[in-house]
Structure formats: structure tokens, C-alpha cells
């Protein structure tokens, strides 16, 4: 049985706002095994990014309130002291973000930004750090790495900048990489390249990856397991093939149905999911997807469904099973 | 994060009908800002004082009463008397007229001269733009008060000349802001659409550009008013503005200096009046800016902060 790198248990994140307490993540539990790629899929506002930021204590603590447990190799990330969590960030768990243009400091050379974690976490001196930084750039596929260390972010293209971010992420050989919408801001070709890059690195380094995205297409090629998030709660969780094949939860089904399908003979209307995501300040007591679910009955609005089949690898949060829903 | 120059009113793609209801929305936002409201109230009182001045002033400003000279604040003389026995309160009250008058007219001059320059410069570009902006830059190259002093040295002191001097000093700012807005809007889709439909330059200027340019100009105008009043006070303090016997806050301060030890109230009250007036304009200006376009700050404040 492979070791669990990360074990998140009942994570709840809420924010105090002028309009009330916004519950953005509600009892989110999942595990990530060594070397595994887990995709967290959801629309904007589903709580996917917030849940990951919470893991590294990157949310400003008032107004945010984080509850639950997040065990990283046995230690709870959420209760770590400032010094302890800083030793984890960028070192054992790295995070890369969506927009490489704004996520890199424009007035520092990328060499400086790469060397920072190397010097801090691995204690490398200047020369060693520089050498390692050049190595990293080479690993992520940036040509003439040695020369480019003294360049500034604005001198790189978007795809290259994201590669630099990846280099920064893997610099200290982390156990886990969290990629928060890391390809969303890139064009399709570059997206594919980055996805491939990270897969390659994964194999090479035995890295576990959490891919946060709203794009199921991205997920299809690279994930081992998928967690579908809606309104801060898990709707469905399964190994990727099972998810695409069975798509037990109505939300998953609707998501997959709404994907444009290229190569059809007749042009078809895109199927959108009618309705809007739930208001985190006024979360309904029942299933968060009920207002938009075509199969919803009264019970769905008042009683929140538990995740069924908690032991098997495929879990669904719905009162009904596939047979009852889809006949 | 900040999408380049954002000097228009939000997205530069709105037809005029919407603009009118935006005016209403702006007023609403401003009114919700308590400081701005306080500022507006103070300003209203000031304008009232300016208009009604002579009628409500307890004493005539030239009421020389040597027997009562240099007396401190009392029930008879709220702000005390000056070296000639004149009532300081009345003089401060009438001084409001001068300050507001000079302020408004100076900014008015700056608007009337600066905005067309900015429009022409931004709209037609080319050589005209180059030359005009170069001239504006030269005016910018001199610190404000220095330029005003230099102009007054040529024209001679006096209230009208002071208005002209301050107006000239603030013209470049309005020209720049207008030009910036015009440049942004000129390239927007709906202007190009209008052009392709055969609209004349005049029509485009009137119906599309002017309405969208009014927002940054309005904000700048209110902020400039604050500084114009400070400038007028400075000039009259230096003896270059309003001439005696008309009271001006700045000059009252200057006169008060001579009697500091015996009658500090001569200098204190006019100063407080200036501070309150300028603060009021600043609050209103800030409120307008926050309502109209918070991102404008970087261009306006940096230019207008003299």
C-alpha cells in the first residue's frame, strides 16, 4: 500500500464578510498517495483554490477561518507554527499559480527568484545555487539556461514564464506539487507542453501532484484520480477512467455533457447547466447542487447527502444511486 | 493587474444614454461617503457665506476702531480684532468670497484653456500634439508658486492677475488629463464605428469623446480647486494677490505676523478657515474620484499634488 503523502480530513474554510459568514469549503476530505496525480475539478467559487491555499496557511487568518486536519506525512499542516509551515512551503510542498505574468516579481531577475528557495531551504551557497538554478531551467526546457538567469520576467514569453514557475516549484524536490489553474492562462499548445512537462517531472522525481482546474479536458490526459467539487463539497471522487465511464453524480454528468465535442457531423448547441452556483453566505442545508439538479426531490433540499461507498475507490455524494437516477 | 491607462469612465464603450444614469449612480456613491458629504456641507456653507457675506457680517470690514484694537476673541468680536480695530470674524467671512472667487475662476480658466488643448492634442495628434505638449511640459518644468510669482511680476499684483496666474499654472494638468482620456477613447470600438458611419470630427468630439472625458476632468477640477485656494492664499500672503483693503485670508495671515505676540488670533483664524476650506474640497474631490474611477488616482494625484 503506497504511503499517503497528504491526508485531508474534513477541511472547512469560511470567511467573515460584511454580509455574513461565507462558507467556501465544507467538510472536504481526500487523500493523495505518493506519486499520484489528483485532479480537483470545479467551477469558479467551488472552493478548489481556497482549499489548497488553506493547506499551506496562505489564507489571511482573520477573515478566514480554517478547520479540520491536513496531515502531510503525519504532521498536521493546519496547526503548524509559522516557522514550521515556512519550512514546508516551497520545500516539501510547492504551489504554482495561474498567471505567470503576475506571479513572478517583475523587478527581480528569475535567477534571484529561483535561488531564493534553494538558498533558504537547501542551504546552498551562491555558486551552488546558481548552478542548480541553471540546471532547473534546463530541466523545464528553457534554452541557454545559464544566460537567462540574469533576465527579468518580462523578457520571457508566457509559456516560458510558467516553466520558470515550475522550476521554482520543483527546486527543492518537493513531495507534493499543487498546480492551481496552472495552465488556464496559456494557449492550448503551450498548455499541452506544460502538462507534458509536469508529467515527465513527476515520473522523474516521484512527485505527487494536485491539479486544480475547471477544465475536464486538462484532467483527462494526466490525472490518476478526480475529485469533483461543487459549493465547497465533494460531489464525486473516482479514478479517472471510472469517472468518465460511470459519471455517477448528476453534476459530473452535466459537466461532461457541457463539454464541446469536436468532430461531430452536425453542429449542436452547447449544453450549459442552468442556474448559478450557490451563495457561500447563504448555503442551503441540503445538497448544494440541488437547485440545479434535474433529478432533485424534496429530500435533496433539506438533507445533505453523505459520500456513499466510502471504502471503495469511487465515492458519490447523492441520495440516489445510478440505477435510481438513470434507469 | 492595472490594465494600462484607465482614464475614461470604466470601459470606454458606453453610449450616452447610459452615461446619464451613471451620473445618478455617481451622485449616489458620493453621497454615501460621509467625508464627502461633510465636505459638501462645508462648501455649501462657504458659498452661502460668500454670497451673503456683507449682509450677515456683524461689522463692516473697514470699520476701523482704534480704541478696540488688538482685543482677543469675545462675544462682541468672535475672532477678536486686528491692529486697526477691525473685526476679524467679518474679515474672515468676506475673505471667503475672495478665496472662492479666485479659486473657481482660476480653475475655470485652466479648464477653458487646458481642456481644448488636450482635446486637440489627443484627437488630432501629430505635430500639433507634439508642440502643445512640449509647451505644457515647459510650464510643468517650473514649480507652481514660482511660475505664478513670475507671471505676477510681469502683470503686476491684483486679484484678476492672480486668477490668471493660477489659471495658467493649472492649465497643463487639465490639458494632460484630457489628452490622456481622449487618446484612450479615440481608439475604442464605438468611435471607430461612428467614423465608419461617416460621423464628422465635430460630431465625434461632441457626442462620444466629451461625455467620457468629463469624469476625470471633474475629479481633477475639484482637487485643483483645493490647491488653487491654497495658491491664492500663498500669493496674497506674499502680497501679490488681492490688494488692500479687500480682505484675503492669505494677506490677513501676513498682516497677523507682525502682531504675533500681542494678537495671535489675527493669524490663527484665517489659517483655520483656509484649512477647513481646502479639506472640504479635498474630501469632495476624493469622494468624486472614488465614485468615478478609483484607478485614476495614480495619474491625477501625482500631477495635482502641488
Amino acid at each position, binding site marked *: 500500500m503506497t504511503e499517503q503523502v497528504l491526508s485531508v480530513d474534513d477541511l472547512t474554510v469560511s470567511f467573515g464578510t460584511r454580509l455574513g459568514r461565507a462558507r467556501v469549503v465544507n467538510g472536504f476530505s481526500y487523500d493523495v498517495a505518493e506519486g499520484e496525480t489528483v485532479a480537483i475539478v470545479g467551477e469558479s467559487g467551488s472552493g478548489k483554490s481556497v482549499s489548497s491555499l488553506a493547506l499551506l496557511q*496562505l489564507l489571511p487568518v482573520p477573515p478566514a477561518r480554517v478547520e479540520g486536519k491536513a496531515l502531510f506525512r503525519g504532521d498536521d499542516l493546519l496547526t503548524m507554527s509559522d516557522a514550521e509551515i515556512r519550512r*514546508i512551503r516551497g520545500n516539501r510542498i510547492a504551489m504554482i499559480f495561474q498567471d505567470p505574468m*503576475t506571479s513572478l516579481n517583475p523587478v527581480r531577475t528569475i535567477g534571484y527568484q529561483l535561488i531564493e528557495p534553494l538558498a533558504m531551504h537547501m542551504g546552498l551557497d551562491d555558486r551552488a545555487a546558481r548552478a542548480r538554478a541553471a540546471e532547473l531551467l534546463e530541466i523545464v526546457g528553457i534554452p541557454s539556461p545559464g544566460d537567462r538567469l540574469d533576465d527579468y520576467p518580462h523578457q520571457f514569453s508566457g509559456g516560458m514564464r510558467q516553466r520558470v514557475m515550475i522550476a521554482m516549484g520543483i527546486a527543492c524536490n518537493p513531495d507534493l506539487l499543487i498546480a492551481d489553474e496552472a495552465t488556464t492562462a496559456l494557449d492550448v499548445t503551450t498548455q499541452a507542453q506544460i502538462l507534458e512537462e509536469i508529467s515527465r517531472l513527476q515520473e522523474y522525481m516521484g512527485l505527487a501532484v494536485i491539479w486544480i482546474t475547471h477544465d475536464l479536458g486538462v484532467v483527462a490526459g494526466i490525472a490518476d484520480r478526480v475529485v469533483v467539487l461543487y459549493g465547497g463539497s465533494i460531489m464525486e471522487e473516482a479514478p479517472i477512467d471510472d469517472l468518465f465511464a460511470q459519471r455517477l453524480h448528476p453534476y459530473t454528468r452535466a459537466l461532461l455533457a457541457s463539454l464541446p465535442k469536436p468532430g461531430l457531423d452536425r453542429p449542436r448547441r452547447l449544453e450549459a447547466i442552468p442556474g448559478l452556483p450557490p451563495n457561500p453566505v447563504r448555503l442551503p442545508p441540503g445538497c448544494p447542487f440541488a437547485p440545479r439538479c434535474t433529478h432533485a426531490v424534496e429530500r435533496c433540499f433539506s438533507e445533505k447527502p453523505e459520500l456513499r461507498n466510502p471504502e471503495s475507490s469511487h465515492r458519490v455524494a447523492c441520495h440516489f444511486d445510478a440505477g435510481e437516477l438513470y434507469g | 493587474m492595472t490594465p494600462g491607462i484607465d482614464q475614461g469612465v470604466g470601459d470606454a464603450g458606453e453610449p450616452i444614454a447610459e452615461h446619464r444614469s451613471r451620473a445618478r449612480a455617481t451622485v449616489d456613491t458620493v453621497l454615501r461617503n460621509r467625508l464627502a458629504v461633510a465636505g459638501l456641507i462645508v462648501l455649501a456653507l462657504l458659498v452661502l457665506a460668500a454670497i451673503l457675506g456683507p449682509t450677515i457680517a456683524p461689522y463692516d470690514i473697514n470699520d476701523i476702531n482704534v480704541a478696540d484694537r488688538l482685543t482677543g476673541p469675545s462675544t462682541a468680536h468672535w475672532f477678536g480684532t486686528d491692529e486697526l480695530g477691525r473685526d476679524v470674524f467679518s474679515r474672515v467671512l468676506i475673505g471667503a468670497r475672495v478665496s472662492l472667487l479666485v479659486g473657481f475662476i482660476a480653475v475655470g480658466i485652466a479648464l477653458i484653456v487646458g481642456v481644448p488643448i488636450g482635446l486637440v492634442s489627443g484627437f488630432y495628434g501629430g505635430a500639433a500634439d507634439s508642440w502643445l505638449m512640449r509647451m505644457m511640459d515647459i510650464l510643468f*518644468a517650473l514649480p507652481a508658486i514660482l511660475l505664478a*510669482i513670475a507671471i505676477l511680476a510681469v502683470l503686476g499684483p491684483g486679484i484678476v492677475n492672480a486668477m490668471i496666474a493660477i489659471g495658467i499654472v493649472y492649465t497643463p494638468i487639465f490639458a494632460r488629463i484630457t489628452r490622456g482620456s481622449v487618446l484612450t477613447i479615440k481608439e475604442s470600438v464605438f468611435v471607430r464605428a461612428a467614423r465608419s458611419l461617416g460621423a464628422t470630427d465635430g460630431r465625434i468630439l461632441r457626442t462620444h469623446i466629451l461625455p467620457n472625458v468629463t469624469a476625470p476632468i471633474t475629479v481633477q477640477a475639484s482637487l485643483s480647486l483645493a490647491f488653487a485656494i491654497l495658491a491664492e492664499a500663498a500669493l496674497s500672503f506674499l502680497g501679490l494677490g488681492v490688494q488692500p483693503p479687500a480682505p484675503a485670508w492669505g494677506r490677513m495671515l501676513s498682516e497677523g505676523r507682525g502682531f504675533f505676540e500681542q494678537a495671535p488670533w489675527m493669524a490663527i483664524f484665517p489659517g483655520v478657515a483656509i484649512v477647513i476650506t481646502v*479639506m472640504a474640497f479635498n474630501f469632495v474631490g476624493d469622494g468624486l474620484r472614488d465614485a468615478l474611477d478609483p484607478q485614476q488616482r495614480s495619474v491625477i494625484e501625482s500631477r495635482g499634488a502641488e
Partner: protein
Amino acid sequence: MTGYVVRRLFQMALALLGVSVIVFALIHLVPGDPVRIALGTRFDPDIYEALRARAGLDRPIVVQYFAWLGSAVTGDLGVSFRSGQPVAGLLLERLPATVTLAFSALFVALAVSIPLGIVSAVRSGSKLDYLSTATSQIAVSVPDFWAGIMYILLFSLVLSWLPPSGYVSFLESPVEWLRHLALPALTIGLISGSIIFRFVRSAVLEALNQDYTRTARAKGLSERQVIWRHVMPNAWIPIVTVVGLQLGFLLSGVIIVEVIFAWPGIGRLALLAVQDRDFTVLQGAVLLIAFMFLVINLLVDLLYGYLDPRVRYD
């Protein structure tokens, strides 16, 4: 970087040329005969003729301009209509006082605004933040001359801690130099500092909210490291820009404050020249102040180029 520097130098030269035209025009825009007006009641035909000749007012305007410009570049700015003394000499005498005051005021302004601005931004919403912001709102509306007068009232007349006016050279007595410098520098510096404070605060706040700050934290940097290594290098850019634009205010303030505190500087000279209608002196003073202003602006621009690599590789 050299390209940037060269371009800025060129722009400054152009601006200076433009200013010289305006300054030159001053004497010619005066309605009436400037020399006659300057002499006023002390009119004497011989002196009048001499001054006119010296100022070259009989030649065609364009020729005059270039002659004037030529002499100005070599240091000859004409003679005072009032006293007959060379203008350049008068200016040079007073330069140290003005420069001292300007720099001290700048120092005060930065010493107040930058630390307060950074702390206010980092601890946004705290009592300190509210207090500083509120105080700056008021301070910004205070006219510098009134502030100066009030300080004199408080510190000189009431408390008798500091002298109300005058200038003592550093070489004569450092202590007295400081005592006499204190009020004038504070007068301008505090107000300028308040204006700059608001910008420092917003610049730091904006940088704090950027994505790269989040990245820095995610790399494991302490909050302090994040602020000094990533936030501030970015925040300095708009701050420097503002300081540069504030210089106009600073110099304007210097002129007024020199009057209030009887500070023997160029500003005071310029004002006396206005009152005396001594146009040559006024021309020289305006030119010199404008020149100082442009030079400092150039330095600020160069600093800006150093701080922001995006501008350098333009």
C-alpha cells in the same frame, strides 16, 4: 541603460531651453519699460542708459535672446537693476541656504512618510493606520505658510525652544545651524511628507496584494523577507515617481518659507526682486530654480530607471 540616460538628458536640455525662453520673455512681457519701472523714483538718465545698454534691450529680440543665453551659459546673468551687482554673484551667495533647506525638508518628508507609510500598509486597518491616514488628510490641507507661522507661535514665542528666523552657517555653529533649520525644514517637510505618506501607503498596499507576493509566501519566505525582498522593490517605483513630482511642491514651499523665516535664500531673493521690479534678478533666480528642479527630476528619473528593469530595456 545608457540609452535611457541619454534620452533623459536630452529631454532635460530641451526643457531647460524652453524654460529659458519663458524666463527671457518675462522681461519683455512687462507692459511698459522694464528698466524705467525698476528704477522707479530713483530714475536717473545716465543709470537708465547704462542699464539698458548692459541689458542689451535695444537690439532685436532674437539677437537679445541668444546674447542673453550665451552669457547665461558662461555665468553672466546681467546686473541687478536695483543694486548694480552682478546677478550671478547674488545668486551664488544665497544658493547654499536654499539647497540646505530644500534637502533638509526632503529629508524630513521622507523620514516621516516612508516608515509610517510602510507600517500603515502592512498593518492596514490598525489604529496606527487610521491615525496616520486621518492626520495626513488634515496635514495635506494646511497651507505651508500658516503651518510655519503656527510653529513659530508655538516653538518660539510660547515655548522659546527654537529661534523664529534667521540662518546660521554650519561652519559657524552646528548646533545653531540645526536650531535655525529645524522649523523651516519641518514646516515644508511635514506637509510634503503627508502627501508622500499617502502614496507610500497605497504603493505598498498594492504591491502586497499582487500575485508575486503570494508566490513569495508560497516559497516559504517569512513576512519580513517578503516585504523587503519582493514588496518594497516594487513599491519603490511609484514612490520615487511621487517624490519626483513632489519636488515642485517642495521648491514652492521653500520660496514661501524663506520669506517667513527670513531665510537668506534664492526664493527670498526672487520675491524681493518681484517687489522691487528688479527683473534681471528675477530672471536669474527663476532660471536657477528651474534648473535645480530639472536636475533633481532628472536624477529621480534615473533612479526610476535603475529601480524598474522594464523601463531600462525599453
